[in-house]
């Protein structure tokens, strides 16, 4: 509970009726209820923390008219870029949609086939957190006096201009974790943490793919990074794709 996804979860061996079990059997099942028109958070920064298996399952599932939120806009022809390449994404919200291998997005953008909202990276992170934290708006000095503040409310605090920014929520978050348990507690590995924790806070339904599922209680309580309350579904993906290698090898999905 905490949030409801409308997905009946496959019960793991460990749990019984009346017990919480957020573990689902497959990535396909995890993304089953994502709907046309949904806004979807996708964690990751560079090659770290991309929930590639969940994104590929979303491609297979066929939902369209999506709004995606990620720091970047995909590389090569796998993961996020492959999802963009299906033509089913209406809008991309990100901070840095440019890279040497951001071919798919750039083509769509220049062809006028995708909408882009460029958000400064810190503002993107803070807007997502605000949505998860019940904050209806906040004032940041970032972007004041620049074209990215155009049309936004400007307010001076202590002699310095600030921009009013609004929360950014999503219907679904797809994130990559390192370990998880059946309650939905998560840990992340190194720089794969990036947007995962705040995206789980701010989505109606947060779905984590994880390298390992541990028995309840095996994640020390002080080391939990995303507490169970922010997570709705957990699916094991023990050998996530290396997008970096896939791109180097010229792989494409599907």
């Amino acid at each position, binding site marked *: *509970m*905490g*949030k409801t996804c409308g997905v009946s979860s496959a019960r793991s061996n460990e749990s*019984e*009726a*009346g*017990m*919480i079990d957020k573990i689902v059997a497959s990535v396909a099942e995890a993304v089953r209820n994502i709907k046309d028109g949904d806004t979807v958070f996708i964690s990751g920064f560079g090659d770290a923390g991309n929930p590639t298996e969940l994104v590929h399952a979303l491609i297979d599932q066929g939902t369209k008219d999506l709004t995606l939120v990620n720091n970047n806009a995909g590389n090569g022809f796998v993961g996020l870029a492959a999802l963009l390449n299906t033509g089913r994404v209406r809008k991309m919200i990100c901070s840095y949609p440019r890279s040497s291998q951001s071919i798919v997005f750039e083509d769509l953008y220049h062809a006028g086939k995708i909408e882009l909202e460029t958000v400064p990276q810190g503002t993107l992170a803070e807007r997502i*957190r605000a*949505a*998860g*934290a*019940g*904050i209806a708006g906040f004032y940041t000095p970032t972007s004041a006096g620049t074209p990215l503040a155009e049309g936004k409310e400007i307010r001076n605090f202590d002699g310095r201009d600030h921009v009013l920014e609004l929360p950014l929520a999503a219907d679904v978050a797809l994130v990559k974790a390192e370990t998880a*348990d*059946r*309650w939905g*507690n998560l840990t992340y590995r190194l720089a794969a943490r990036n947007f995962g924790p705040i995206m789980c*806070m*701010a989505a109606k339904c947060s779905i984590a793919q994880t390298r390992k599922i541990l028995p*309840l*209680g095996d994640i020390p*309580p*002080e080391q*939990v990074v995303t*507490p*169970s*309350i*922010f997570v709705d579904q957990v699916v094991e993906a023990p050998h996530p794709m290396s997008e970096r290698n896939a791109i180097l090898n010229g792989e494409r999905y599907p």
Partner: protein
Amino acid sequence: MTDGLTRQQVAWRIAQDMTDGSFVNLGIGQPELVANFLPEDREIIFHSENGILGMGPEPAPEDIDEELINAGKKPITLLPGGAIFHHADSFSMIRGGHIDACVLGAFQIAENGDLANWSIGSSGVPAVGGAMDLAVGAKRVLVMTDHCTKKGEPKLVEKCSYPLTGPGVVNTVYTDLAVIDVTPEGFLVRERVENLPFEELQNRTGARLTLANDWHPLTAP
């Protein structure tokens, strides 16, 4: 109030309305009793505002840890699956709508859902704690209270005379005499103790009550 349920029974009644797998915050005082009545085979995850999820029962005296306490500053335990986080994260959970239900005490509840539970006005030290955050943030705000004050004054009223904790926030009130929903039409009695005529329940209430068509007797073991 010998006509009604004991506090233990009211706590039992509230426990029946907790959904499997839900995240619940129990306020300080009477609401803490609710934790005692959850069936062992069901998992409810208790949140404590001071940065804890997965709060377990009171420890044995020899297991007390001063650095593991609840919002009421009493020693607790941590269940497997529990997690620790800081205060800003804890209140993000509350204010951000992640808590499925909270159970709060009350001085007064108005028929429009206004809650007053933190201050009795100018006397005393004004202390609010996390009550205002819970009142606006929890998905369901349940109130556990005696139906009337010790002096016999109604706590369910047309308009709160005490300072508000939150406007229009209460969903359901559980008293020793009745279970009452706050609806757009005012107080709706869903359950009431059978030995008290509806007219008498109305007499002990400071606002108009409507009896639900499908009302049930309020009973508890």
